[in-house]
C-alpha cells in the first residue's frame, strides 16, 4: 500500500509540472485583487486557449472528437497540478464536464463537428438547462415545452439554477415534447443558442447574498431539428449521460472550504469561561469528528484514484462524498460560531470566523445542489444496498392527466 505515482504517472506529472511552470505566468501567485466577472471570463478564455494549444484539454475524450484519448488518471494528475496554481477555473466545468460529452454522445456528426472543437478551445461557453421551479429532485416533472413546427421546435417555459447562463453561448435544454406520454417518456433534449431571440436570463440572489445562478425564460425560442440530441422522447435517457458526469464533478469538498484545521485555528484563539477552548472535551471531540468526515472523504477519493490507476472502475463508496461533505461543513461551522459566542455572530471581513460564517451560509445550498441529502440517501439505499425504490404513483400515467394525490 502506498500513495505514490506509478512510474508512468510520475513521468506525466513531471511533464505537466514543467509545462505549468513555463506557461501559468502570473497565475503562479495569488491575484493582487479579486477579478471582476468580465475580467474572469476573459482570463478563463485565455488560459483555456493556452491549455488547448498544448493538448491539455479533453484528456480522456476520444481522439475522434478532438480529445487526447488518455486515462482518467491523466486528467486527475493534470487537475491536481493545475489546482496548485491560481489560474481562473470554473467557467468551463459544466460545459466540458457535462454538456459537451452529451453533445458528442448523442448529437449528429455535423453538430459535433460544429460545436465540440470551439468548446474545447474555450471560444464558446456552455450551460446546462435542466431544473425548473416545479422540477428539482423530481427532474422528470419538467414543463418547459417544445412543439414541432416544420423543421423547427418552438420552446416555451422556464429553467432555474443555471450556472453561467448569462456568460454562455449555448446550452443543452431538456423539454417536454409529448404531454400525453408518461413523465419520463415525453422528454427531448436540444442544443439552444443562448443569444437567440426569446431567451431571457435573470440572476438569482441566493440567501447567502451572492448571485451565482440564473433563471432562464424561453419565449417562442426556435431551434432547428438538427440540434436535437438523441431521439424524440429519449430526453430522459440523454439527461442521464449528463447527470452521470455531474455526480463525478460535484463530489468532494469545495477547494477552499474550511475544514478541521480551521476549527483548530479558531478554537486555539478562543478563551471561554471555562478556559482555553482547545482544552474543552466537547471542542476536541468536534475536531475529531470533523477530521473523521473530512479526511474520510479524502481517503475515500484516494481509494477511487487507486482503482483508476489500476485501470479499474471505482467502487460505489464514492457516492457518500457530497452527503458527508455538505452536512459536515454546516455542523462544523455552527459549532465554531457557537464557540465564539457573539463574536461568531458579528461579521468581521477577512477573519477565520467570517470564512466559517460564509461556509455556514453556503453549506445550506450545497446540501441541495447536485442531489439533495435525501435523494443521495435514496440512491445509496436503492443502487448500492439494493432496497426497493420509493413508490412512484405518477410513473405510468400520461403527464397531461397527472393530479397530485
Amino acid at each position: 500500500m502506498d500513495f505514490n505515482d506509478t512510474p508512468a504517472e510520475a513521468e506525466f506529472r513531471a511533464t505537466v509540472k514543467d509545462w505549468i511552470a513555463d506557461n501559468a505566468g502570473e497565475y503562479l501567485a495569488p491575484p493582487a485583487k479579486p477579478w471582476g466577472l468580465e475580467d474572469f471570463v476573459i482570463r478563463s478564455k485565455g488560459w483555456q486557449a493556452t491549455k488547448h494549444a498544448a493538448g491539455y484539454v479533453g484528456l480522456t475524450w476520444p481522439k475522434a472528437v478532438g480529445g487526447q484519448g488518455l486515462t482518467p488518471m491523466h486528467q486527475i494528475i493534470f487537475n491536481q497540478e493545475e489546482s496548485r496554481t491560481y489560474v481562473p477555473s470554473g467557467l468551463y466545468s459544466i460545459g466540458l464536464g457535462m454538456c459537451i460529452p452529451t453533445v458528442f454522445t448523442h448529437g449528429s456528426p455535423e453538430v459535433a463537428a460544429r460545436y465540440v472543437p470551439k468548446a474545447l478551445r474555450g471560444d464558446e461557453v456552455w450551460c446546462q438547462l435542466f431544473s425548473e421551479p416545479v422540477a428539482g429532485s423530481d427532474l422528470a416533472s419538467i414543463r418547459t415545452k417544445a412543439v414541432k413546427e416544420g423543421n423547427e421546435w418552438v420552446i416555451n417555459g422556464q429553467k432555474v439554477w443555471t450556472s453561467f447562463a448569462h456568460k454562455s453561448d449555448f446550452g443543452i435544454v431538456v423539454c417536454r415534447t409529448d404531454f400525453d406520454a408518461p413523465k419520463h417518456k415525453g422528454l427531448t433534449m436540444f442544443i439552444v443558442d443562448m443569444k437567440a431571440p426569446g431567451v431571457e436570463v435573470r440572476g438569482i440572489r441566493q440567501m447567502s447574498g451572492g448571485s451565482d445562478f440564473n433563471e432562464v425564460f424561453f419565449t417562442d425560442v426556435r431551434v432547428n431539428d438538427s440540434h436535437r440530441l438523441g431521439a424524440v422522447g429519449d430526453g430522459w435517457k440523454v439527461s442521464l449521460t449528463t447527470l452521470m458526469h455531474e455526480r463525478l464533478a460535484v463530489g468532494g469538498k469545495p477547494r477552499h472550504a474550511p475544514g478541521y484545521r480551521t476549527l483548530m485555528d479558531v478554537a486555539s484563539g478562543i478563551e471561554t469561561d471555562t478556559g482555553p477552548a482547545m482544552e474543552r472535551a466537547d471542542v476536541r471531540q468536534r475536531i475529531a469528528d470533523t477530521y473523521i468526515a473530512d479526511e474520510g472523504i479524502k481517503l475515500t477519493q484516494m481509494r477511487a484514484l487507486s482503482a483508476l490507476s489500476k485501470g479499474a472502475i471505482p467502487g460505489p463508496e464514492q457516492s457518500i462524498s457530497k452527503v458527508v461533505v455538505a452536512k459536515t461543513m454546516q455542523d462544523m461551522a455552527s459549532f465554531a460560531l457557537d464557540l465564539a459566542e457573539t463574536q461568531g455572530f458579528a461579521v468581521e471581513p477577512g477573519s477565520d470566523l467570517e470564512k466559517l460564517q460564509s461556509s455556514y451560509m453556503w453549506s445550506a445550498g450545497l446540501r441541495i445542489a447536485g442531489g439533495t441529502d435525501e435523494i443521495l440517501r435514496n440512491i445509496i439505499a436503492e443502487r448500492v444496498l439494493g432496497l426497493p425504490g420509493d413508490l412512484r404513483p405518477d410513473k405510468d400515467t400520461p403527464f397531461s392527466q397527472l393530479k397530485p394525490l
Partner: protein
Amino acid sequence: MNFDLSDDAKTLKDAARRFLDARAGPSVARKTMDAGTTHDAALWSEIVEQGWPAARVPEVHGGLGLGTDEACVLAEEIGRSLAPVPLLSTMAAIEAILLAGTETQQAQWLPMLASGEALGCVAWAEGDAKSPTAMPGLNLAGGTLTGTKSPVPDGLVATMAIVTIATPDGPAMAIAALERVAREKVDTLDLVRPSARLSFANTPAESLGTAAHWLRLTEQLAVISAWEALGTADAARDMTVAYAKDRVAFGQRIGRYQGVKHKLADMYIKAELARAHALHGCWAWSVATRPGETGASTPELAQAAAAARVASLDALKFTAEEAVQLHGGIGFTWEHDAQFYYRRNRAIAASIGSRAHWQDRLVRALEQRNRAAA
C-alpha cells in the same frame, strides 16, 4: 497511488470469508453462548490448521511472515462471523512480542503461539474507569506479579498473557504464563466471547519492552479493532438490509420507506468512512513496521490509528443499535441474532479505550503534527 489492500490479503480475505460463512456466524455464536464454553474448540483447531495465528509470525519462528494487510482482513472476517475463537487475542499477544520482545522472548513464545500450542490474551483493564494509557496498579517486583486484571477477553482459555504494569516511564508490559494463575469468569455484556478475572499472586513474569512499546501496541490494537468492528457492522447491516427487503408493513416492503432506507444508507456511509480510515491505519502500521523502525509510535500511526478506532466505533454503534430498531419487536427477542451485534458493539467499544479516549488521542496527534510542521 495504491491505497488498497494487497492482492494477497484480498485472496486471504476471500478464503477466510468462505471458510467462516460455512463454519461460523450467529448460529455458531449462539451454540457457544448456550453451552457456556470459553470458545468453540473444534472451530479453533480448524483455524489453527489454516495457519491464521501464524500469519504475522516470522518464518524463522515457525510462522508465515505475512504483512499487516493480512492481519487486518483476518480481524475483519472474525468480526463479521462473530467466530467464538481466541484468534484476535492471540494475534494481539503476538504483536506485543514482535514489537517489544527480545530475541529470547521471541524464540520462546512465537513458535508456540503460531502453532496454537499457546493461546494469548492482553490483560490491561483493572475493573475501574481507567483508560489503557493510565498507570496500572500492577507492577513487576522481583520478577513476579501480584494483583488482579479484569475483564480480560479470552482470559479463561489463554495460556499466556501480556500484562500491563506500572513503570516510572508510564504503563509498560510484562509477559506471564498463566498455568498457576487463578482465574474466574467475569460476567460482561458479551455472552459469546467470555472474559476472565486473572488473579496474579507472586506469578513469575518478565518485562517486555518499554512504555513506548505499550503505547505503540495500543495503536496497533486500535487498528485491528477497527477492522473487527467494520466486519461486525457490515454483517449487522447485511442482516438488516435483507430484513427490510422482506418485511411488509402497510402494504409495502419496509425498505421502501425513507425512514427505514435512509438509516440503512447512513449505516453504509458510516461504514465507508470507517473503511477509509481503517485502510489508512493499516497503511500507517505497515510503514511503522518496516526494518529500521524502533517499535515506538510514529506520528502517522498515532493519527491514523486513533481515527480508525473512532470512525469504526461510530459505524458499529450506529449500525448495531439501528439494526435492532429496524427489526422491530422481533429484534428485541432473545432468539433473534441482533443481540449478538448489539452486545459485540459494547465489547469492541471497551476493548482498548473508549471513543472519547481515542478522540482525544486523535486531536493530540493532530496538535503534535501541527507543532512539528510549524
